[in-house]
Each structure stands twice: as C-alpha cells, then as structure tokens.
C-alpha cells in the first residue's frame, strides 16, 4: 500500500491534468469571448450616441457660461474697485452669483458625461485614458482649486472688501486662471480626437503626453472657445437682465437691469466681432492638418451647415445692431447719428444675403437644366468664399461703426484736434473697407491657394481699423461735454426681447458648431486612428442634428431658468426681511453721463 505522502504527488498530477483539460476545453470559449470584446454598450431606447450628444452639449453650454462670465466679472470688479463706483461692484457680484448658481450643475453634467463614456464607449475611453491619463489628475486638481477659489470669491465679497479688496480681486483672477487651464485641458482631449498627434501607428504615445496635448488644432480651438465663452456668457447674462427688466416693478429696477443688459451685450458684442477671425484660424489649421477633413467640412456633406451658420450669425449681427440703435433712443444727443441707421441696416442686410447664398444647389435635373447648371448664373458668384469673406468683414466694420456712434451719442469732444481725429477715424474705416472689397474682387481672378491667403489681409485691415479707431476715440472723448444723461430704463421693451433672441440664437449656434466639430470626424472616434464601428457610425443629416440641437437647447434654458430661480431665492428672502444680498443695490435711474 502506498503511503499518503507518495500518493499525494500522483493526486496532484491527476488534478493538474484535469485542470489542464478543463482549461483546454474552455479555450474555445476564450477565443469567442476575445472576439466579443465589449467595445460599445447600448443605451436603452434612444441609443448611446444621442445620450452622449445631449449631455455633452448641455455640459458644454454650462461650462462655457461658468468659464466665460468670470472673465468679464473680474474686469468689471476691477473697474468698480479702481473708480470706487459701487454699481460696478454690484454688477460683478450679480454676474458671479449667476456663475455660482450654475457651478454645481456643470460639475454634475461633467460627471454624468464621464460615466456615459466609461459605460457606453469603454474601448474608446480606454484608448483615450492610455494617452491622457496624466492630464486627468491635473484636471481634477484644478477643478478642486477652481471650486474653492470661486466659493471664496463669491462668499468673501463682503469680508474681503475695503482695504482687502485686492485679495478679493486676486481670487477672481486666480479662478479665471484655473478655469482657463481646465478649458485648455478638456480642449486637448477633443482636439486630439480631430487632429491626433504624438502617437505611433499603433496608437501609443511616442514620447510625453505634451505632444498629444499640443496637437495642430488645440491652440486655435482654445482661442476660439475662450472668445466664444465670453460671447456666450455675455448673451446669457444679458438675457437674464432682460428677463428681470421685463418683470421689473419699479423704474429703479428697470434702470438697473437695462444697464446690466447693456453691459452683458457690450461684452458679447465686443468678443463677437473678433470671433470670426479665431474661426478662420481654426479652419486654416484643420485644412493644414488634413485636406480631406477640411474639404469635408467646407465642401462635402457639411457644406450646407455653413449656410445655416451664416443665417444665425446674420441674426446675431442684425440683432446686436438693432439693440444698439434702440438704445440710442434713450440717449439725448444721439439724434445726429440716427440718420446713419438706414445705411448701416442696408449694408448689414446685403452682407447677410451674400453670406447666406449657397455656392451650389441640389436640384432636380429639370431645375438644373432650367437654371443652366447647379450654380445660379448671377447669384452663384456670391456663393463663393471671396464674396462671403468680403460680406462678413464689412458686417463687422458696420457693427463696429454702430458701437462707435452709440459710444459717442451723448458726448461732444472738447479736444482741439477733434476734427483731425475724426477724419483719421473715417479714413481708417474707408481704407479697411477698400482693402476688404479689393481683395474680395481680386479673389475671383486667382487660384484658390492664393485666394485663401487674401482673407488674412482682409482680417488684418478690419482689426487694424478697429484698433486705430479706438486708440483715437478713447483720448478724444475723455472729459467730453455731455449732451444729456442716459435715461437708463427708458429703452423700448422690444429691445429686451432682442437680447433674449441673441442668447437663444448664440446657444443654438454653439450646438451647431459642436455638431460641425464632431461631425467632421465622420466615422472616426479619433480621426484616422480609432474607427467608429458602432451602429451610430453614420453622421446624421442636418435636419436631424437641428432637431436634437433644438431639444437640448430647450433643456438648457429650462435648467438655466430653474437654476437662476433657485439662485434668486436668498435674494427674495432677504428682500422680504427688508435687506439685500451681499452687495448693496445701486441706484441708476435718474441718469448717467456714461455710455458704457
């Protein structure tokens, strides 16, 4: 009889053999399982793409708001601090109050978006994590830093006033620095998806993560989004003020929110005028990174998207100008400038029509025969970039002129060189317009590769004119004689609906541009590297996209209204107790000599 000890090795061997056999038998399942690696999961009913789309758009809307508003809020606070004008401090506090209310919703939506990616796009998320893991830590830490800074900034408004105001302003600056860095990090992820760099053909980092972060479209998008956030923050804040104006019970309240709406719109308009230039830069970098992507964006299945964009931007230009013209009605002395309004309106309308002219039309054979081709024999000339660039640059110049006239509406310069100054200003407008038109026409006679370069001269001329005119305008009207105080609060109610229209339009435009940025990748999660093999790999048509954008924008405004209502509850409580919020409400009704 064998001893137990001797029998044990045999038993172990038999056990191992059985285990090996079981393992071998299990291998086929292993091969099958390997083939079924979870790449996607499906969200019930509406599908994964739609839920990610909706949450991403909502998150971006809120994020743009909470990153855009603090930029100008801190500037306004500095103005109030240096000029010792309490109304600016109140306004800055009002703006930060809106940000504060929207802060947690932004974070919640961001967390939800993360869960959706991890759960429904696991392979994609693993791929991105392999490359960007380092940045996740930085992002999270910065988010903590920004949260605490904004909380301190908001709650410390009264505590850090007086001699400690500089600390408070410093907190505002710091929260902006954190916020902008967060924006740049998030931008690196999504621009990498458009224009990947710093990786091998096998999708692994070649060196450090910086090469992937600093991809070709990163910095142009950073600049574009930063400016767009300012516009967005301005329009939403202006719409909030408009709503408060329309519901105001007293003249004082109306004056206050009229002024707040004006400042919000002023911020939005100032940033909006330079936004197209940032857009040019981004577009040029997309072309430089990959011609196919650039051509798909502008000349492929997305070409009609730019017609819709032109209409939206046309509405924004016309709306902004109309608001300024209505605003002039409450400024004594502005009568002398109102005669220019019909001409400016004509120029804007003409520019709008040119910009919205499609290059080629999709027609039936009979229609094409009747027209002599897919290009209209006359209007077809206006559907090309030469005409469109000319139109948009002239619209920017016109809008700037509207602002300049508004700015000096109740002021008479006392400077001895005023005539020379004005002559130089008008000459700057004329020269810029001349350069824009010259290169617009010349563009028809050169190759496309040469024509693309002309837009730089056109943009340069417009920006140069803006810089020169303002450089002269500021000293020229310093200490100017007033022709009467601005009658804040006495603007027609329809002007406030214009502010709401601008906010809705810009929010919708952001959704459309998000679709464009994402859609140009077509069936790639990461362009040319990680292919979208899901059932949603098809990029939808514009009608479907527009319906989704509308639904999400409705959702955004519903949330915004709810959050702002929540944010206003303490104020209501304080009012019922006979007090106010953190900063005293200034009295603006009765007039102000300032126009901005």
């Amino acid at each position: 009889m064998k001893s137990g000890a001797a029998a044990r090795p045999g038993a172990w061997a038999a056990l191992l053999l059985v285990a090996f056999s079981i393992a071998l038998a299990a291998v086929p399942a292993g091969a099958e399982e390997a083939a079924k690696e979870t790449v996607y999961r499906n969200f019930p009913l509406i599908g994964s793409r739609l839920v990610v789309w909706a949450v991403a758009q909502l998150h971006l809307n809120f994020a743009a708001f909470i990153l855009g508003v603090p930029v100008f809020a801190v500037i306004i606070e500095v103005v109030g601090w240096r000029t010792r004008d309490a109304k600016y401090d109140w306004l800055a506090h009002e703006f930060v109050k809106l940000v504060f209310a929207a802060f947690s919703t932004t974070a919640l939506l961001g967390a939800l978006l993360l869960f959706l990616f991890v759960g429904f796009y696991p392979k994609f998320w693993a791929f991105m994590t392999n490359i960007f893991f380092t940045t996740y830590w930085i992002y999270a830490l910065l988010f903590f830093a920004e949260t605490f800074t904004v909380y301190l900034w908001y709650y410390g408004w009264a505590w850090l006033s007086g001699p400690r105001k500089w600390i408070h302003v410093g907190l505002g600056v710091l929260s902006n620095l954190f916020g902008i860095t967060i924006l740049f990090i998030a931008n690196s992820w999504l621009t990498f998806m458009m224009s990947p760099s710093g990786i091998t053909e096998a999708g692994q980092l070649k060196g450090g993560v910086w090469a992937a972060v600093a991809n070709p479209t990163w910095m142009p998008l950073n600049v574009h989004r930063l400016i767009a956030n300012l516009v967005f923050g301005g329009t939403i804040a202006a719409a909030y003020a408009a709503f408060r104006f329309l519901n105001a019970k007293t003249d004082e309240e109306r004056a206050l929110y009229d002024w707040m709406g004006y400042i919000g719109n002023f911020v939005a308009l100032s940033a909006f005028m330079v936004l197209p230039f940032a857009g040019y830069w981004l577009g040029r970098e997309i072309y430089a990174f990959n011609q196919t992507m650039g051509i798909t964006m502008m000349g492929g299945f997305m070409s009609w998207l730019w017609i819709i964009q032109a209409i939206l931007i046309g509405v924004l230009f016309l709306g902004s100008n109309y608001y300024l013209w209505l605003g002039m009605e409450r400024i004594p002395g502005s009568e002398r400038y109102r005669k220019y309004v019909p001409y400016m309106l004509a120029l804007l309308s003409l520019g709008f029509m040119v910009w919205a002219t499609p290059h080629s039309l999709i027609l039936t054979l009979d229609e094409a025969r009747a027209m002599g081709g897919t290009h209209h024999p006359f209007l077809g000339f206006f559907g090309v970039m030469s005409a469109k660039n000319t139109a948009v640059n002239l619209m920017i110049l016109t809008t700037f002129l509207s602002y300049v006239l508004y700015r000096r509406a109740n002021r008479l310069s006392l400077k001895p060189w005023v005539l020379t100054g004005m002559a130089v200003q008008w000459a700057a407008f004329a020269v810029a317009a001349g350069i824009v038109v010259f290169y617009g026409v010349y563009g028809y006679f050169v190759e496309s590769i040469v024509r693309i370069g002309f837009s730089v001269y056109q943009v340069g001329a417009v920006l140069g004119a803006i810089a020169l005119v303002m450089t002269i305008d500021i000293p020229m009207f310093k200490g100017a004689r007033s022709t009467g105080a601005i009658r804040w609060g006495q603007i027609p109610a329809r002007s406030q609906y214009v502010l709401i229209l601008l906010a809705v339009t810009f929010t919708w435009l952001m959704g459309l541009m998000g679709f464009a940025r994402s859609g140009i990748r077509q069936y790639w999660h990461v362009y040319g590297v990680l292919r979208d093999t899901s059932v949603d790999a098809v990029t939808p048509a514009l009608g479907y996209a527009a319906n989704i954008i509308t639904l999400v924008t409705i959702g955004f405004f519903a949330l915004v209204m709810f959050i702002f209502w929540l944010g206003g509850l303490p104020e209501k409580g304080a009012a019922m107790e006979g007090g106010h919020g953190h900063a005293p409400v200034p009295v603006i009704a009765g007039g102000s000599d300032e126009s901005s």
Partner: protein
Amino acid sequence: MQIPVGVKVVALALATMGAYSWFANSIPQIESKPPQDLSLEGNVPPAQLVKAGEAIFHTKGSCETCHKIGEKGMRAPDLGGVGARSGKRKPGMSAKQYLIESLLQPAAYVVEGYPPIMPEVDKPPIGLNRSELWAMVAFLESLGGTVDVTLDDIPATAGAAAGGGGGGGAAAAVKMPGDVNAGKTVFTGKAVCGACHTINGVSQGKVGPDLTQIAKIQAPDYIMKKVLDPAGMGTVSGFPAGVMPKDFGARLTAKEYTDLVAFLLTLK
C-alpha cells in the same frame, strides 16, 4: 388680458429655435455613412472590377470631393480620359504605374496648376485596402484607357495601415505562433473550410471566394477577424451573404484557431 412676460419669452425662444430647425430640415438632407470594406479575390472580371472601383470613387475613396469626371475641378484635375492620359504623364511609366503612384504617393507628381493636397489613399482616414486599390486603378484606367491592372501590380505593403482599430492598421507582416501543417488539417478537417473555398492543391469548394492568395490580398487583421466574425467583416463582392458559419470561435479551440490563421497567412 395681458400675456405674462414668461409666456412671451418662452414663445419667442421656441419660435426662434423652431424656425432654425425648420430651415435645417428644409434643405438637402445628406448623411455621411461609413464606407463598406471591399474584398476582391481570385479572377475578377474587368467589368466587375471597374464597377467596384466606381463605387469606391463615390464612397470610401472620397475622390469626388475634389475630382470631377468630365468637368474641371477647383481643387483637383478632371479625371475624364485619365486612363488614356496617364500613360503619357511620366516618361517610361505606364498608365497603371502612374495611377498607382498617384494613389499611393500623390506628391510624386502634381499636375500643374493644382495644389499638392491629395492624401495617400491607402492610409487613414481614407485607408483603401489592396483589393480596393486594385479596383480603383481599374476604374481610372477604364476612363479612356485599357483595364490591364492585376492584383500583383499593387504593392504588397499597400493598405497595410488602412485599419483604424485603435492601433492603426495591422502590421504588414505578422508571424503567427501556430502550426501551419496543423492549420491545413483544420482547414480541410474540423472547420470544413475546403467544402466552400478553393485553395490550389488543397481544396476546390466554389461557394465562397478562392483563398489561394488570400494573404496577398488581405491584411492579417482582416483574416483573423473574418474567421471569428464573418458577417461583421462584410461579404466578398459576387458571393452570397450569410453563408459562412458564425460559430468558429466556439467550435475551434484557441490552438486550432491559431493554427488555421497561421496556415491562411502562408497563402500568398
């Protein structure tokens, strides 16, 4: 009765967004669908090749974004008559050689008056595979010339990086650890592949495509996935869909699968 401000504001917002949506729905609705991968094997008649190439021209190749046929393009030359013209472009280079070079190394010769913007079409994002390049050249040759391109004319390395599976394309040459002879036995035995596929000297099935040169035509990544997920990898042009069994992943052991793939990769 006065309409409350909130109602007016909501109505304005909804009307504005509704108008934008309405306009977006009233213009031409164009979807961008992901292209289907094409796989051509064995002796493909020129007519079928040209037809397949024309389909690629309009879809996966994205060629017509810049090129027109019979019309001068703004960004790229007219391809009308290119089959006849390309034999005269570069001295000592035949039409098919020129066309292949134009597709794989477009910067080697740029037609005067046009910018050098054409991408290498066998690389992502377009990423044509060898079969598709073959068909594309045949289609271009058919535009005024004679279709004489064969699969052997397309470089073996072309299309190797066409994938986009999160790791770029499959490597041009993959050495499988499996046993080639054992794989041949699996092919003719347990997997019964020979009942449907022809391999010269091994089997003579006619239901599916000829696999005699499959490793020359297709990337290893495609072959490996095709065995496990035949429907997911598309059906070869000219053959019925849904015939190839979907359960090889369950029926074969890991070793048998590895051996089978190792054998298929020797078929060049």
